């Protein structure tokens, strides 16, 4: 950040923003999730939680002057809104584990059809440490993963079984890509909406797994 978003990224962010409800306490993972606030409609009042120690994070570059004593979990200077509260790491994760974080918006390397999430480690390649990711994935009341539909090799991020080390098992509630929305229904990530440019076939493209499909797909734009 800041960087230019692609059309696909803007599409998936706009769709993901519809998953955010008025009054929610929301944690945003590093990367694409950090762009989400710009897509949340006016009037939807959300408290952003930053696991390094506050709720009431301002909308990043969108409003106010960044304060170098107020960094988000990615190290980016930001600012707080009126009504924010600062606290320490203990209170921050008490909020997460105690059931007071309504929504965690995370990126993914892989999402299993069973809702497993792998987003923290690629053995031999990337060993950054899990940070607060495991607790966010395991304990947020709802986990929304936003991700490009396909990885760089053209394979779907939604997989039959994760091959990478898990961040948390069976934790993903919703997966939004630029092509599709999947929700974990009866324990399996189920296609519930497809982008009109791609349709159901495009929404399942690249996914080498048996993915359930809802009887009637939600309208992409009008989804609740």
């Amino acid at each position: 950040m800041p960087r230019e978003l692609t059309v696909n990224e803007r599409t998936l962010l706009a769709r993901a923003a519809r998953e955010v409800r008025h009054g929610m306490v929301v944690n945003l993972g590093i990367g694409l999730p950090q762009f989400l606030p710009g897509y949340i409609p006016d009037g939807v009042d959300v408290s952003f939680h930053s696991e390094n120690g506050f709720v009431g994070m301002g909308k990043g570059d969108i409003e106010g002057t960044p304060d170098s004593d107020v960094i988000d979990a990615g190290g980016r200077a930001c600012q707080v809104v009126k009504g924010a509260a600062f606290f320490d790491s203990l209170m921050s994760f008490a909020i997460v584990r105690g059931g007071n974080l309504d929504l965690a918006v995370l990126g993914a390397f892989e999402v299993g059809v069973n809702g497993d999430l792998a987003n923290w480690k690629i053995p031999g390649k990337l060993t950054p440490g899990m940070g607060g990711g495991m607790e966010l994935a395991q304990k947020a009341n709802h986990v929304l993963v936003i991700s490009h539909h396909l990885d760089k090799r053209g394979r779907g991020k939604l997989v039959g079984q994760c091959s990478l080390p898990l961040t948390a098992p069976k934790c993903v509630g919703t997966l939004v890509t630029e092509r599709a929305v999947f929700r974990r229904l009866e324990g399996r990530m189920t296609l519930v909406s497809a982008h009109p440019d791609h349709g159901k076939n495009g929404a399942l493209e690249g996914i080498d797994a048996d993915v359930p499909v809802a009887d009637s797909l939600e309208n992409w734009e009008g989804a609740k």
Partner: protein
Amino acid sequence: MLDRVTTVENAVRQYVQSAQTIMVGGFGRGGVPFTTVKFIADHANEYRNLTLIKNDANEPGIGIDALFRQGQVNRLIATHIGLNPEFIRRMNDGEVECELIPQGIFAEKIRAGGAGIPAILTDIGLGTEVEAGKRKFELNGRTLLVEEALRGDVALIRADRADRAGNAWWRGSNRNMCVVMGTACKRVIVEANEIVDVGTLTPENIHLPSVFVDAVVPAGPLPHGDANAA
């Protein structure tokens, strides 16, 4: 930020019911939600079979004592009941159950409930009656007691200052168990001596963040009597 200010009546009617486990703040008088407790006592037929979690039993005629007197409470979990001989009499007569826990472990069990920690291992109480009936665990050659988390349905706490979103601040020794109880219940009603606009409190100095709070209600006056009495 959501505006969570309402009346004590609305808050209690919305969140409190019979047969709940209710955490009640306070040590002595400081932090005791007298206003909210009084509403529950004034509607004794509607709120019964309660389990209370509170540091102490207040004194006769003050605070939660009315709930015992009216038979609204089945069980109290506390650390010290010595200032309420009437409660002790009721306990001895079998009118109400009471579980006593060392004060710091009482706070830790509530914290564990609030912080999503199923249990802690502790050496407090080893070699005393506190051991009785508790599971044990051997760690590095030491025997430890397993103390499980406590959670409640509703927390009733009294703050000195709260903003309309629910961020709260306590003066002096009034904080005691209030903050930790505010983290450990499904619903949290904060009665506040002073309700201020959002943005008035310094964010670094907030003791209980608004994300835990469901209702902010105006606190009535403290009960009469010796202001020093617990």
